[in-house]
């Protein structure tokens, strides 16, 4: 094989493909083949082994989990380089034709968790309309398109929205840890939360055609489609480049990609691809990835990350 294969996060996919295209255009190597599988799916593929039939790079919208590192090691994938490429915010957006939402994380929790505390008891989610949760919200049926569990964005949603909101529920305070985790992190399965896997353009599509539906999706999709969609302020903060870059926006997280060091050399161009990705013309504040909606890291961090990437520093958990 003489063509890089990249899998993983749908969040990073637009950036990864942009870099791949630029990299391919330079003409020295074939354009990498990029597949959007979600962070989790990408990790599974990436960690499944070393050799021709396994990908060289996986994109991620969350950090690699210890369990995944373990899985990697088990399959002989031992040398991994981690690169933080920038930041991203998770936004709750809907069609411009639809109603305006102003949300809190607690409201999102109540709208999307499978079981919610009502009157001191954990009951199956009773809310049908947004207005059932809070009269200030639109009187529209709850319909949220969100990422499936194989997505980093899902993990981030759990970690940044469900868990914090859950922690504030007095009814859940005394629960046993495992049960609490399950109670907090399980999402609705009654059709109000629709899971989309592998490809965020599907979410994009569904919310544009369905104005009352909300999509849990990432900032770059909002940025690129401002003519069609709008984002709900979360806890009073509007998702903007600066709000996310300055960490004011509550649901933001870093993005990554991981390189299989054992494949460097084996597949021509891996190093050069990494170099292209970490060049200022790509991920700089005015780079082409910024145009695609990537929120660049501060200069110092970029520098450090670029160094680490180009020297293929080993992943440290």
């Amino acid at each position, binding site marked *: 094989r003489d*063509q890089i294969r990249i899998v993983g996060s749908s969040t990073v*996919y*637009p950036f990864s*493909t*942009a870099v*791949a*295209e*630029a990299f*391919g*255009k*330079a003409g020295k190597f*074939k*354009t990498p*083949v*990029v*597949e*959007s599988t979600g962070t989790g799916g990408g990790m599974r593929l990436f960690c499944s082994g070393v050799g021709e*039939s396994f990908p060289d790079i996986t994109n991620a919208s969350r950090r690699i989990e210890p369990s995944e590192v373990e899985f990697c090691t088990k399959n002989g994938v031992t040398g991994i380089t981690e690169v933080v490429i920038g930041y991203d915010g998770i936004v709750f957006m809907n069609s*411009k034709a639809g109603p305006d939402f102003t949300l809190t994380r607690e409201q999102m929790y109540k709208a999307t968790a499978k079981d919610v505390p009502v009157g001191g008891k954990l009951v199956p989610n009773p809310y049908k309309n947004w207005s059932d949760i809070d009269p200030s919200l639109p009187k529209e049926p709850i319909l949220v398109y969100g990422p499936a569990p194989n997505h980093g964005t899902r993990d981030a949603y759990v970690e940044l929205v469900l868990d914090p909101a859950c922690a504030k529920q007095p009814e859940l305070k005394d629960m046993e840890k495992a049960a609490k985790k399950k109670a907090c992190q399980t999402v609705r399965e009654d059709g109000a939360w629709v899971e989309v896997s592998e*490809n965020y*353009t*599907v979410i*994009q*599509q569904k919310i*544009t055609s369905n104005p009352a539906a909300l999509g849990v999706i990432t900032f770059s*999709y909002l940025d*690129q*489609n*401002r*003519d*069609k969609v709008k984002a709900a302020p979360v806890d009073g903060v509007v998702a903007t480049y600066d709000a996310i870059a300055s960490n004011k926006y509550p649901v933001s997280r870093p993005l990554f990609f991981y390189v299989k060091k054992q494949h460097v050399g084996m597949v021509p161009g891996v190093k050069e691809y990494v170099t292209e990705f970490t*060049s200022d*013309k790509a991920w700089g*504040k*005015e780079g*082409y990835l*910024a*145009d695609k909606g990537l929120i660049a890291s501060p200069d110092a961090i970029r520098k450090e990350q670029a160094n680490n990437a180009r020297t293929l520093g080993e992943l440290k958990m």
Partner: protein
Amino acid sequence: MAEITVAARTAETVAARLGRRYAAERRFRILGLASILISAGFLVLLLGTVVAKGWTGFLQTQIAVEVSFDAEVIDPDGTRAPDVLDAADYPALVRNGLAARLVPDGDRSARRDLSALVSTMGAEQMRRMVAADPKVIGTRTTLWLTASDKLDMVYKGQAPREVGAAGNVLNDRQLGWLAQLEQAGQIRKAFNLQFFTGGDSRAPEQAGIWGAVVGSFFSLAVTLLISFPLGVATAVYLEEFAAKNRWTDLIEVNINNLAAVPSVVFGLLGLAVFLNVFHLPRSSPVAGGLVLALICLPTIIIAGRAALKAVPPSIRQAAAGLGASPLQIVAHHVLPLAMPGMLTGTILGMARALGETAPLLMIGMVAFIVDIPKSPLDPSAVLPVQIYLWAGSSERAFVEKTSAAIMVLLLFLVAMNMAAIWLRNKFERRW
């Protein structure tokens, strides 16, 4: 004579009801005509939609930008080393060229807005110019650069242009620039060559169908190479040689059923067998072609058998009577006579294969593939999958590209169908 009166009464009764009966007749007839018209109407609506949305996809907006091949930016050390020239920040040069005309001040957000007007192809164009002839470094020249998809949409009138309109893709400042460009005659629409020569791209203005066309070509070549000889051989065996017994019955039932198995199931077969067992390369035309070959094999066999059946037995008897062996009868007489029918069936099968999408999704042809495949083993897209991918893309400009790609696909299909019809009419014999 009682009968006569009965007959008279008959005439009367019949006459009395005639009006109503003829009205019913007319209604029925109109229903039939309406059905045809409605069906045809859908066809017209579909084609109309596609053409209306897609014809602009063959055009591309360009803007004239005076760029300077700034030696400071391209090659500060004056080494003229190819590596350095390649890696230079050409986008900045494009941006500067635009900024020089449109934004006197250099604020960051304005520059971002500005670079959103041109495609990165502009920078690429400059890079190639430098690579071809480093002497351009240090000169200034005006280039027609490909506009970004958003500007393209607005200029073509597919996105609103009024300041402050809902669904604006350009902001007010950008719209102002557009007016400026237009006034200066620095914006135009040109034939979209990139669409016909390029591979896929995430940027709509750079996306082309050539990669998918080549992929489709490779897939169909594999399909044809496998399904045609196998199909003809099977048809000949079943129709001319096989005795009627359980085994041939089994084969027949099999073929009839395979013809109606949903194509997505063939995709599952391809995934489980061709990819997981035989380890054919994912997303490759070989794997795709193999799956498609299995899909259109029954079509070819059934058409082939019909064509063979249409050859009158008297021809076979005549040849047999002269001492031709069974294979000679087939090779000298039956096959040549049946060939037009078989080819017609094959072309129709190929046309179907050209439009098949679902099974190819199963074998990984949905990956993002930019390079034009060079062999059937390279990863590649095919036309219908490309259409599917673009149809799912969120950029507004992809709607136009999708429709344009559909037009190209339909063109191929119509050409194939016409060829089949022509063949059928030319060689069809009535015995």
